[in-house]
């Protein structure tokens, strides 16, 4: 065969397979994808300009429903992002820290302790929780490392190419249009309006009494699950090796008799961290100081609503702003504009949720087209407490 024919045929074949691969990638990114608020939050993190964040928060829903980066920027001027995912595993937390090191160099990494406080290590293999975080990470050595070490051999491909798992979602396309559009809009816009914050507009009412008032006096400890403790040690070793400024926090919860063991594990974690030279702030113990009202500031036992979140954000952000470890970097004009928009959106979201709760309506509020459309009618003026 002539060389020219050979080249032509090779080019044609390559073009064909390129078209197939591109189609698959587009399908995987925008159509046959299990998009939810976790996806938009994690994806938004990777849209952040390199080295533009002063602080990054890592953890589960406990942190992304508690801290409002827009509010922290508006009041204290530092930029932050919530690289968090629903019920994230301890392995997920470690990978997230590594991803932060790879993509940003924040002066401070704040880790919410939830992933290490479970009574057993079942969450580490909970397929839904693992997928919710790792499916949304782009290809990186850290993601591959996790897949290689932890994912069962027959499931490895679907972590690398989520289309294998989610291609059957075509039957649910009509129900997924809003999230698909939200995903597309986020990519077009290039940044997440809420920097990962999500909430539910609801005031939690319970017959089970809160034990929050007695937490400051609780000194009992319960051992951490051995696997989770080992992962914590690995995380601490990694942080030391890379000279990272890492602090651990525990967001306020509506603690009851049923969830009290976590408080004792939290105390144990504090001892471990202290011993290894890391700071741990169990804000569960400071609910009163923060001003958390158990009858108004939660939307369920594990999560605060915007009333609680704004108090916690002010308290934590003020503390961080006064911490020498937090270095506030310089920003370009475009960055400043974006952050003003983020703060404005956060203020609108607060008023929107306030409005819903006042009217007794329950609704999730997050970075998606439905919520963002609803915010248009609300004022973006700073919230006065």
């Amino acid at each position, binding site marked *: 065969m002539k060389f020219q024919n050979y080249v032509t*045929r090779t080019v*044609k074949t390559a073009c*064909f397979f390129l*078209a*197939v691969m591109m*189609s*698959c990638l587009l*399908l995987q990114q925008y159509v*046959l994808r299990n998009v939810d608020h976790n996806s938009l939050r994690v994806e938004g993190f990777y849209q952040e300009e390199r080295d533009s964040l002063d602080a990054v928060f890592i953890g589960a829903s406990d942190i992304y429903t508690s801290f409002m980066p827009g509010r922290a920027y508006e009041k204290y001027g530092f930029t932050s992002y919530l690289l968090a995912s629903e019920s994230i595993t301890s392995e997920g937390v470690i990978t997230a820290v590594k991803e932060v090191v790879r993509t940003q160099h924040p002066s401070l990494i704040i880790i919410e302790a939830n992933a290490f406080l479970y009574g057993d290590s079942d969450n580490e293999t909970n*397929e839904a929780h693992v997928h919710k975080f790792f499916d949304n990470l782009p290809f990186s050595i850290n993601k591959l490392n996790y897949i290689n070490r932890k994912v069962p*051999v*027959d*499931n490895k*491909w*679907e972590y690398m190419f989520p*289309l*294998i*798992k*989610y*291609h*059957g*979602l*075509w*039957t649910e396309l009509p129900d997924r249009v809003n999230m698909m559009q939200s995903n597309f809009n986020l990519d077009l816009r290039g940044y997440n309006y809420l920097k990962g914050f999500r909430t539910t507009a609801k005031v939690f009412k319970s017959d089970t009494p809160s034990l929050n008032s007695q937490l400051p006096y609780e000194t009992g400890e319960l051992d951490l699950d051995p696997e989770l403790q080992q992962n914590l040690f690995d995380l601490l070793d990694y942080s030391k090796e890379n000279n990272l400024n890492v602090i651990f926090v525990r967001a306020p919860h509506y603690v009851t008799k049923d969830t009290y063991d976590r408080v004792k594990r939290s105390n144990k974690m504090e001892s471990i961290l202290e011993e290894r030279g890391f700071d741990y702030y169990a804000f569960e113990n400071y609910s009163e100081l923060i001003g958390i009202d158990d009858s108004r500031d939660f939307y369920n036992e594990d999560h605060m609503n915007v009333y609680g979140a704004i108090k916690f954000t002010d308290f934590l952000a003020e503390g961080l702003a006064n911490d020498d470890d937090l270095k506030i970097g310089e920003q370009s004009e475009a960055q400043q504009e974006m952050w003003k928009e983020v703060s404005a959106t956060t203020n609108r979201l607060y008023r929107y949720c306030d409005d819903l709760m006042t009217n007794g309506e329950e609704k999730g509020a997050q970075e998606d087209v439905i919520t963002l459309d609803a915010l248009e009618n609300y004022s973006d003026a700073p919230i006065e407490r």
Partner: protein
Amino acid sequence: MLFNISYTTLNFLCFVFVTMLVYFLFPAKKYKWTVLLAASMFFYAVAGYKYAFFILFTTLSTYLIALWISRVSSHSKKLLKEKKKEWDKDQKKKYKNTVKIQKRLIMTLALLINFGILAFLKYYGFFSGSINELLGSFGMSFSMPTLKLFLPLGISFYTFQSMGYIVDVYREKTEAQRNPFKLLLFVSFFPQIIQGPISIYDQLAHQLFEPHEFDFTRMKHGMELILWGFFKKLVIADRAYILIGAVEQDYTKFGGTTLTFTILLYALQLYADFSGGIDISRGVAQIFGIDMIDNFKRPYFSRSINEYWRRWHISLGGWLKNYLFYPVAMSNVFINASKKMKNTRFGRTAAGSHISKVLPTSVASLIVFLVVGIWHGADWKYIAFGVWNGVIIMISILMQPLFDGIIDKLHIKRQNPFFVGFQIFRTLLIVLVGYVFDVAPSFGEGMRTLTLFFTGQDFSAGMAEISKLGLVTADYIILLAGAIVILVASIIQERHLDTDIRTMLDQKPLALRFVLLYLGIMTVIIFGIYGSGYNAADFVYMQF
């Protein structure tokens, strides 16, 4: 299984890709076949390393026995040549008979070893269960022990293939292979080990050992065939199996309408599953320059059950014809019985003359289909499946003159489209009755299902049942569209027997080919049943 490497996984595609790279880049042309052997061993080890002993044992015994037979043959020929002048005719004849008996004994040993292993592993449970049940019914306390036996991957396929090779050596149709590793490759060649086709040594072996160079067109055609197989298996068969599997799980609960629908769907599923798997096998082999026989030729277009079995699982049919049907039909017992009948008063009548002529063929057919039934599984329902097909074929052979007479009297032209349609429909009905015994959990349930076809039809209750069996409207649309695509492709193939669709496609404009292949790939990717979101089914014929 170390990890899932079945034909429809990405692991398998990667494995094929790596094997292909190594094969075509392998520098020592003479030893290219060792790449295929290494790949086959790797595949078998991954898919079922616990069973490797059995395939190695079968290969070794086949190798040694074939060499033994070959040595006896060559030694006898040499001796006959040496004694050509010394021995008279009778001495030569006597010696030839002795050699024949010796070779037969060796072959019997091979049969006992290879089919013995197969029979023990596959059928011990069935026979011990049946015997225990029988003894129990007579109030006898003796019972055969229950053993937990496993079935090595592809055992039926590689046992039949090995035995075919030994018989060919015995018949001196082929030379015995001197290299045990080459024989091991013939027995274990990875594209065919899971579900065939059952290849004949002379047809496959030399292709395996030949050093093939990379050929773009061959690779393209191979990949197109793999894509077609993936379409049939993942888009159609595995989707249909969602409903069939749900019915099989709770079979006795369903009424006539649901079971009728299930059997109809099973006809589609079984064909798409089995022929899809074979397409993948053949496509993979084709990439390496190896042409394996086609196991299917549009079986549902058959005008008689005889024709159906010539179009369905062709390699098994061919094997049984060569190594069972002919030896039985041409055996002295059958020929003598035929002759004896011919000489009776009945034998001298027109009907008797015909019956005595076709008796060996018809009885041999019944025996063959009994074996087909047993081959499919160790259960009375499979035996019923075999007997049903055998009896129909037997009747059709014996009654042929009567049927011909009726057709002639009614002045029906045999190529009349309506008559052809009637014949196809009639054959399909007979096939569907056989399928009932495949799907039903037992012989008794199979019989109950047949009764329900006539007495248990309740359309609205059936629709209500079917709607809860795991498929949604979109799935039925895909199944219907998929069935239409297969039908159209089959009609095209049926009308252009001298060429295949892939060659026809080569002659179309580039843009059209690109679009068709692109749509094919995207259809499999989007609509295929695979990944942990779905529970993909094993190949149906893998269990046989």
